[in-house]
């Protein structure tokens, strides 16, 4: 399985990554991508800061991807996750999966996201008009792991 993992401060080009992902792999008929962006529901978010654990982050992401590889028929996997300061609407991260079968591509992408959310060492801090606060983990994110 082709596996590419990028943990970086710089923005990434979602369109170009989607376009190039699994390109030329005529055996893989199904590609699923997920992109997460800095959400601003109320309109008063100034920005976000993402902290991570250099060294562990890459290992954790690779372990999650290898677990997915063992469970589904995957030809290519891509994970990109940014850290550092981000503005509202900016893309935080993406995953992409390619498989001969659409069900495998979908399930693997959702699995990667569920595990990445709760098992990869990233922490988000939001800065709004009235100050900064660490984003709390949601029970539903931990619960999402029970499905797998």
């Amino acid at each position, binding site marked *: 399985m082709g596996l590419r993992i990028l943990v970086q401060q710089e923005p990434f080009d979602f369109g170009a990554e989607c376009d190039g992902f699994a390109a030329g792999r005529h055996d893989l008929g199904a590609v699923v991508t997920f992109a997460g962006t800095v959400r601003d529901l109320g309109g008063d978010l100034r920005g976000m800061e*993402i902290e991570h654990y250099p060294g562990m982050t890459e*290992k954790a992401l690779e372990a999650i991807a290898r677990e997915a590889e063992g469970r589904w028929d995957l030809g290519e996997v891509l994970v990109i996750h940014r850290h550092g300061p981000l503005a509202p609407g900016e893309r935080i991260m993406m995953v992409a999966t390619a498989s001969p079968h659409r069900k495998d591509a979908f399930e693997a992408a959702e699995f990667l996201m569920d595990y990445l*959310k709760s098992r990869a060492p990233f922490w988000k801090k939001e800065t709004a008009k009235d100050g900064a606060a660490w984003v709390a983990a949601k029970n539903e994110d931990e619960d999402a792991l029970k499905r797998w």
Partner: protein
Amino acid sequence: MLDVLYFAWVRERIGLPKERIETSATTVAELVEELRAREERYEVAFADLSSLRVAVDQELTEFDAPLSGAREVAFFPPMTGG
């Protein structure tokens, strides 16, 4: 000697990202007890272990995990990436 790392609000409460510690603790829980006994900022940071996670040598583990041979322990809140 052990490298102890703190992330997110654990780092902020303790006031530093990393320190080297001379310890004879044999488990993570013993290390936490040593740290809590040091100063109030540690006491505050480690007040509720259910809201903390721990990694030994960059692998997620539990608070009863042994420290034998460990080089690096990290404490942090539940992850919120994605």
